[in-house]
């Protein structure tokens, strides 16, 4: 046994090569969306090419449980594009899993409120619970999204090991896992899908992979019970997003989920003071019943989200997927899990499991996401400027309102829709903004706002 990464040649690491000799053993650490998507697609591809594989998913959490015990700490929004891609793959999200189907976004600013409707007037965004609902929610009201995906993987033949992996070492160039409960096993291929919350990634520091975990930032997520009637009356089927001029707040959203309302705040060092300022803002208050007070006890968490990708998210016989590998900036984390998981499964089954295979076939996706995130940073910097300048906020509001009334092409509406919903890449969003009419209209509306300002 050694702590050094093996240096086997690619040819001896091809799963196709192993196929003729023995059953391939695959370990997946983490049964969240990335782990489940990987297991599902790996086993599907293996079946397609006649590869005999045994796949174990190590996941100590039972996602079928309600409250923190079964929750995977996330805002829980499945983007419009991912809902469509999953339906194309034959994975249709049932109404028991979707806590709320979303048909529009409502943008709240100090200068006004406007609604951006889904381009086809259709419910194509799914607000889901990662566990079986918040603490205190009646049981069997919703099914967990993560549990639903893990079930799909199990139906394909994956085996769930409900134990926590404690150590990973090399055993004759193969990864060997040992769980806290004492189970140990050597595998041909290891997939790491642990996310970035928790200490699991420390296990890989001494393996000689040169893996460096992604950069992270803290978020704040809270679930409040409001009741279905109140939710319908104040929130409807829309996701409410806020562009407020609050220091350190990058983005905030209220996501309706049946009887509950999910608060989701992104920014720098989100603390109680910032949460309180947000809750007390007039824009948030108008979305809530008059006199609503934050209850003393409620389900909340401060999970980390990635702000940059991992360094060297693969090696011989090992790949890191989802948040602990590469994810989109701020948005569509579940979509990133799907994309990286599928790319890793494709590479492993169709090409091989050596570092070189992942470099050629998995890394291009990671690089594409990394490049897109750079554009995303530019877009969020631009959004911050709008947040900080009242005339820009007024101009944007007027542009969207005009477009939603059917006057002119919905250029700003689509830019914001794709930015908020995470449905399109940041590159696509940026390209939309390059249209001359977009800038002409925005500059015109900015000038109108500046002229309308009172002279002091």
């Amino acid at each position, binding site marked *: 046994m050694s702590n050094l990464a093996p240096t086997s040649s690619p040819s001896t690491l091809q799963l196709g090569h192993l196929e003729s000799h023995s059953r391939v053993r695959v370990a997946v650490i983490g049964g969240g969306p990335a782990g489940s998507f990987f297991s599902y697609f790996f086993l599907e591809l293996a079946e397609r090419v006649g590869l005999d594989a045994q796949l174990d998913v190590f996941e100590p959490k039972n996602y079928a449980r309600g409250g923190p015990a079964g929750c995977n700490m996330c805002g829980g929004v499945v983007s419009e594009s991912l*809902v469509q891609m999953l339906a194309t793959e*034959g994975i*249709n999200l049932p*109404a028991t899993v979707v806590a709320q189907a979303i048909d529009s976004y409502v943008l709240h600013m100090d200068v006004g409120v406007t609604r951006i409707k889904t381009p*086809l007037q259709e419910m194509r965004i799914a607000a889901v619970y990662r566990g079986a609902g918040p603490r205190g929610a009646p049981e069997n009201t919703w099914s967990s999204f993560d549990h639903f995906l893990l079930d799909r993987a199990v139906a394909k033949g994956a085996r769930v090991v409900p134990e926590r992996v404690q150590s990973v070492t090399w055993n004759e160039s193969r990864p060997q896992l040992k769980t806290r409960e004492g189970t140990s096993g050597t595998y041909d291929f290891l997939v790491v899908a642990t996310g970035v919350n928790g200490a699991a990634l420390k296990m890989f520091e001494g393996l000689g992979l040169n893996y460096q975990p992604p950069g992270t930032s803290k978020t704040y997520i809270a679930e409040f019970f409001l009741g279905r009637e109140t939710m319908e009356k104040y929130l409807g*089927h829309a996701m409410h997003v806020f562009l407020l001029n609050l220091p350190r707040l990058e983005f905030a959203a209220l996501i309706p989920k*049946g009887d509950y309302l999910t608060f989701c705040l992104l920014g720098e060092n989100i603390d109680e003071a910032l949460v309180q300022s947000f809750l007390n803002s007039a824009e948030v208050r108008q979305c809530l019943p008059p006199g609503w007070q934050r209850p003393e006890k409620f389900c909340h968490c401060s999970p980390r989200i990635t702000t940059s990708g991992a360094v060297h998210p693969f090696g011989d016989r090992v790949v890191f997927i989802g948040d602990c590998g590469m994810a989109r900036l701020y948005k569509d984390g579940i979509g990133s899990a799907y994309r990286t998981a599928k790319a890793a499964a494709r590479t492993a089954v169709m090409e091989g499991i050596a570092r070189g295979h992942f470099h050629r076939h998995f890394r291009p996706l990671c690089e594409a996401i990394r490049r897109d995130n750079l554009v995303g940073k530019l877009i969020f910097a631009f959004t911050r400027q709008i947040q900080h300048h009242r005339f820009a906020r007024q101009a944007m509001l007027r542009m969207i309102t005009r477009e939603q009334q059917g006057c002119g092409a919905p250029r700003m509406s689509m830019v914001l829709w794709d930015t908020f919903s995470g*449905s399109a*890449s940041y590159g*696509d969003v940026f390209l939309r903004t390059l249209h001359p009419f977009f800038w002409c209209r925005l500059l015109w509306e900015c000038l109108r706002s500046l002229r309308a300002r009172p002279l002091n």
Partner: protein
Amino acid sequence: MKQEHAMESGNLGKIYRNGEVIIMQGENGDCMYVIQVGEVEVLQRLGSDEVRLAVLAPGDFFGEMALFEREVRSATVRAIGEARVLTVDKRTFMSRVHEDPSLAYRLVKIMSQRLRRLNAAYTRVSAHPFNQSAATPSAQTP
């Protein structure tokens, strides 16, 4: 009861009432559809007659030809009872399929199965040209 109530808000897609046309033969299309809840019928106009080609159920898709070619819709699709259907945009599909060609595998597989059934129906009709019922049971392909 509580779960039924909760599920009302979790239906994805768009509702089509009984008899409502989802796509019309001869119209341009730039998306395909995946049935979430309910059933739809696929109909083709032949002169003044309408022939039912297929009845599709939850999980089935239709209108997929529009993703691959620029022809008009080859058939009309109508809801049988209330149906909830999700749209898949050509633009979203194409941008993803360039990144991940295996995304199209399931579509190709099901289109292949439909072609196989169509071939079988054609063979039966050719063998018994005056027996109209020969084509009916297995010609359920859009």
